[in-house]
């Protein structure tokens, strides 16, 4: 067992970096979610002259502009507003209204709930797919002849290593408009298909992209796991007359269980902050995710406004969600920890 001092010396550099670049920003986000900082505005009559073609047009109007202080910076006030930003994001009044009037579907018109619905569905639907497909590839590669394994592993890893922005664009181009795969499907079915015209087809493509992108990661880890399956156990299972399926269920899967938990954990975290797909597939009109919502609040408009308070609130809500999702796999890790430590 290590002394605390030694332990601290080992982990200090890592902890320092995480505190500086993750924990501190997180604390400030937490604080900002209960505050609103705004410039002190004043009304002023301003004459603005802008170019037309050939001659200028000048307009005089009353504009609301921020006050600039002695030091040349905009004067701002910061107010504690309690849960107001959370209320603005959650819009619970509308939720209850929708429930009361029986139009539960109306809840999905509120950005946060719309994003939550997609994010959760995306996370939970792709999870079994990624594990299933990854396992299937690992088993088939493991069954394949030694000579083809190298090249197959290499090709299988491509979707995982490719830069996500480029990977999602490469799939977007195959399907957008009369992209070649859409054109091919149109020829087969004889109907006009538009993959990016309605929510469900876009979602389908997003699921496909995510599984395509992440299944290789699951595959390579399962494949590594398969190399350490105890051959004697397998042999004795064969002698006991266990079918291939029974061997898979009772020997191989239990052996891979820690890896399945590991992949599930990583996948839950990565999926829950789904973002690249929204940008890559330009799905904002139909489908949005929680991280995209935060990103959208933070993106300044032309006039430089950012909804920092609502962004912070939505980020904190996202955090709470991920803690809930992680509780199950983490309980297992806790038991392992207790088991190994004492």
């Amino acid at each position: 067992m290590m002394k605390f001092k030694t332990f601290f010396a080992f982990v200090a550099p890592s902890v320092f970096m995480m505190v500086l670049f993750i924990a501190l920003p997180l604390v400030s986000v937490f604080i900002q979610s209960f505050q609103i900082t705004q410039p002190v505005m004043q009304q002023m009559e301003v004459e603005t002259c802008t170019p037309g073609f050939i001659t200028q047009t000048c307009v005089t109007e009353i504009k609301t502009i921020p006050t600039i202080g002695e030091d040349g910076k905009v004067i701002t006030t910061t107010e504690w507003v309690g849960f107001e930003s959370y209320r603005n994001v959650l819009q619970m009044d509308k939720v209850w209204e929708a429930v009361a009037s029986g139009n539960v579907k109306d809840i999905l018109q509120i950005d946060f709930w719309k994003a939550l619905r997609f994010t959760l569905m995306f996370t939970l639907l792709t999870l079994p797919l990624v594990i299933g497909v990854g396992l299937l590839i690992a088993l088939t590669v493991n069954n394949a002849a030694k000579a083809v394994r190298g090249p197959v592993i290499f090709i299988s890893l491509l979707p995982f290593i490719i830069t996500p922005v480029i990977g999602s664009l490469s799939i977007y181009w195959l399907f957008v408009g009369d992209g070649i795969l859409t054109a091919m499907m149109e020829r087969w079915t004889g109907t006009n298909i538009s993959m990016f015209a309605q929510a469900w087809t876009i979602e389908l493509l997003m699921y496909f992209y995510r599984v395509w992108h992440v299944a290789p990661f699951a595959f390579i880890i399962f494949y590594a796991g398969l190399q350490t399956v105890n051959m004697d156990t397998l042999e004795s299972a064969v002698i006991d007359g266990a079918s291939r399926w029974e061997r898979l269920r009772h020997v191989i899967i239990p052996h891979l269980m820690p890896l399945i938990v590991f992949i599930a954990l990583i996948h839950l975290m990565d999926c829950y902050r789904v973002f690249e797909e929204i940008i890559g597939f330009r799905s904002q009109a139909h489908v949005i995710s929680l991280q995209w919502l935060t990103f959208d609040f933070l993106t300044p408009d032309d006039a430089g406004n950012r909804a920092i308070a609502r962004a912070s609130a939505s980020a904190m809500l996202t955090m709470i969600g991920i803690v809930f999702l992680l509780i199950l796999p983490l309980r297992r890790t806790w038991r392992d920890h207790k088991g190994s430590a004492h």
Partner: protein
Amino acid sequence: MSTSRAMRQSLALRFSSSAFLIFWVVIASFPILWITVMSFKSPVDAFADNPLDVIMGPNTLSRGDGLSVIDIVLGLAVIFFTLRWMFTRLPGWIDSYSPAGLKVLGWVVGAAVYAIAFLVVFFGILPLILGPLNSILGPLGEPFLGLTTQHYVAVWGENEFYRNFGNSMLVTAGVVTISLTVGTLAGYGLARSGSDLAFWLLILALIFRALPHSVLVAGYLPWFINSAEILRPIFGDVSPTLYGQPWAVIAVLVAINQPFTIWMLRSFFQNIPAELDEAARVDGCSHFQAFRRVIMPVMWPGVITTGLFSFLLGYNDFLVTSLLLDAQNQTMVPAIAGYFNRETTTTDQVEAVAAAVSITAPLFLLVMVFQRQIVSGLTAGAVKG
């Protein structure tokens, strides 16, 4: 092993299993192959809706850029042998030429030399041979497949993409080295300390890993831009503006990458028997000495695997690099996104595709070189939950 009864398979199983594998290989490689094809065509062909037009490139051909049968046969032959030797002969050469103990370095140098040799042969020697050959052979020498390298020339020449390449290499190298150095220490500490504090640190790291990056990154921007002003009371006039500094971005990426790194390495170190370093400690070594003498020699498989994941993160990052670097220090991924801005042209888009294929190439090499290490590193236990 092949005689093992457990591995014996029925014909039906073997058939369906290889059918699935072929299906998967096609799906895995098709989008990437397709953008590669697009990058060699004129804009009209690249975005044509008939797949045959994209492949054959009639518009590209009509502008005088094309390949003849001879070009293709010889070109494919060169590519085939390059790939084949990469798997069969390259490892042997590297083994025999690299000094003992520096095998990793040998691989890196060997792969680079090999890649350069290929480029020289393919783009330097081959065209010289093919020019006269095409004019002799009549119809066989007649170009029929439209193909142009103009977009690559534009990207690497006019747009000076090699600068972005250099920046990417700098950032990635920094991220990999620092995160492995910091991460191995922490991973070892966590693996050998059974305290609850260690456990909660890990859980906290996990939650940090789950954070949406856009939240963090937007928080950095004002601090990075104003850092000279903020740090002036402490460091005086030498205080730097962090915005646009590659090493500041490296620090951010290392921090973001730490949770994953320490989880991977902790599991790996847990699988190295604690008796090993305890024995060293009995001999009078401190924890650090034990780490250096006993653990360091056996940790490389796990470190290489973890390092590859760090490499991918640093190399592929878009959010952090696009927001915190300026044009002079921009890495490749945000530079590519720059081709897709509000006012762009189809030519820009095909150039972006060419750039995208270019940045995928080093990843190709990397996986080819380290493929075995990934599997063996993972097998050695870097991922035991």
